[in-house]
């Protein structure tokens, strides 16, 4: 599904990613954890093709294609979805309208017929109930005037409608109260399937109680310094991130794994 090799990237003038290696197979959920400033959001941005993030080395392939060659919308149409850490407000643009335009672009790309208004609404209502979303949000401008929780919920709602093959969740849990966190996690879990992979970027371990990952990676100073199963998250909860400063950046080794040895260090 996703193969990242020795990925290096700059944000502005600063070198942030110093050689990331990660393989995500279909159906897997990977959690990427790490302290603030470790490069989590830069990694998510580099994969989605955000302006201002410059890939300076390494490679990323998505379903066999060179991901880094693709325009952001091509990546999206191929099935890569980014749930934004700070969802963007677009005043005047109806939430449902954006979603319908997006869905039909994706469907066109897949060679499926476009959905008409009726079929679209049927799908949307089904997905809204998944996230306990208020009907009114659908007809409000995209993220405009939404609370933090509503914005994050809207991101996962879009995920549920667009049905991507790879979903990257960038700190979707930050700032959520427990009820909103459970709802969001419930939506994500409902979308788990053997064909769909997820990369869950988070700073906090609590989310992983609700979205249980197959693999956990710890990012520090632009490298993955440790990988393991879901128990690694618990270890982090106890120890915090402080010990990472002492940890040398080393190739990740974990048993039973989709990680590859690297030779970048």
């Amino acid at each position: 599904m996703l193969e990242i090799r020795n990925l290096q990237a700059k944000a502005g003038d600063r070198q942030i990613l110093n050689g990331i290696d990660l393989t995500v197979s279909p159906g897997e959920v990977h959690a990427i954890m790490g302290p603030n400033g470790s490069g989590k959001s830069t990694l998510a941005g580099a994969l989605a093709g955000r302006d201002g993030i410059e890939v300076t080395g390494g490679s990323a392939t998505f379903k066999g294609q060179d991901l880094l060659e693709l325009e952001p919308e091509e990546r999206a149409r191929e099935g890569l979805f980014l749930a934004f850490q700070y969802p963007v407000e677009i005043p005047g643009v109806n939430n449902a309208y954006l979603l319908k335009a997006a869905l039909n672009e994706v469907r066109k790309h897949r060679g499926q017929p476009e959905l008409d208004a009726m079929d679209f609404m049927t799908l949307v209502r089904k997905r809204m109930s998944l996230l306990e979303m208020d009907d009114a949000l659908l007809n409000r401008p995209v993220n405009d005037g939404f609370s933090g929780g509503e914005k994050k919920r809207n991101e996962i709602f879009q995920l549920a409608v667009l049905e991507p093959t790879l979903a990257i969740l960038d700190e979707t849990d930050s700032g959520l109260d427990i009820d909103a966190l459970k709802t969001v996690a419930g939506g994500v879990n409902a979308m788990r399937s053997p064909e769909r992979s997820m990369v869950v970027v988070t700073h906090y371990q609590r989310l992983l109680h609700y979205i249980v990952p197959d693999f956990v990676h710890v990012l520090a100073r632009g490298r993955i310094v440790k990988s393991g199963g879901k128990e690694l998250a618990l270890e982090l909860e106890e120890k915090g991130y402080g010990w990472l400063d002492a940890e040398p950046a080393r190739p990740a080794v974990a048993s039973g794994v989709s990680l590859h040895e690297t030779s970048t260090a």
Partner: protein
Amino acid sequence: MQNWYPGDKDGKGGIYNFVTKRGKALANAKVTWTQVETGSAITWKYPSCILQGDNSVGEFYSVAVTNNRQQADTGTKMVHLGRNTRSTIVSKGISAGHGQNTYRGLVRIGKGARGARNFSQCDSLLIGDRCGAHTFPYLEVKNTSSQVEHEASTSKIGEDQIFYCRQRGLSTEDAVNLIVNGFCKEVFRELPMEFAVEAQKLLSVSLEGSVG
């Protein structure tokens, strides 16, 4: 809907379009101006309403787009003379390239226009950083029983908005169209269906190549 030749991208050639339009409303009558201005090198146009009769109503809905070197200076005059007269002004200016967009309007409420009401909304959308938007709302109120409300906003299509749309699968051009159409919604709503569709298309042609 006005789409005269605007000149080339450096501002050479193009039509100058200077227009005068007036409407007079007697008791209980209503005058509505709805315009979509996309063409001409220079547009000066102020369709106006004289609200002479009691309870008469005036409306002005406008979308003006300027790209490249175009200039549009447009707006309305609402002259309230009768009692309980009402007027609504919704003006949307979109500037791209080196385009300049000006809203120039007058709301005059005469002494005898007791209980008159006006609501004005002037919004400007900027695409790129070489264009400009200007707003000159004049309000003259000569009695105390009237209500005049004015709202204005200026916003810019941000890179982050376009990236957000592209991450959801839309092309840059579609993203701009989506945002622009959302911006003009209140005016397009006033157009007959077939006109609204055409206006949207006209807008996307006029703004072609303005981003990226």
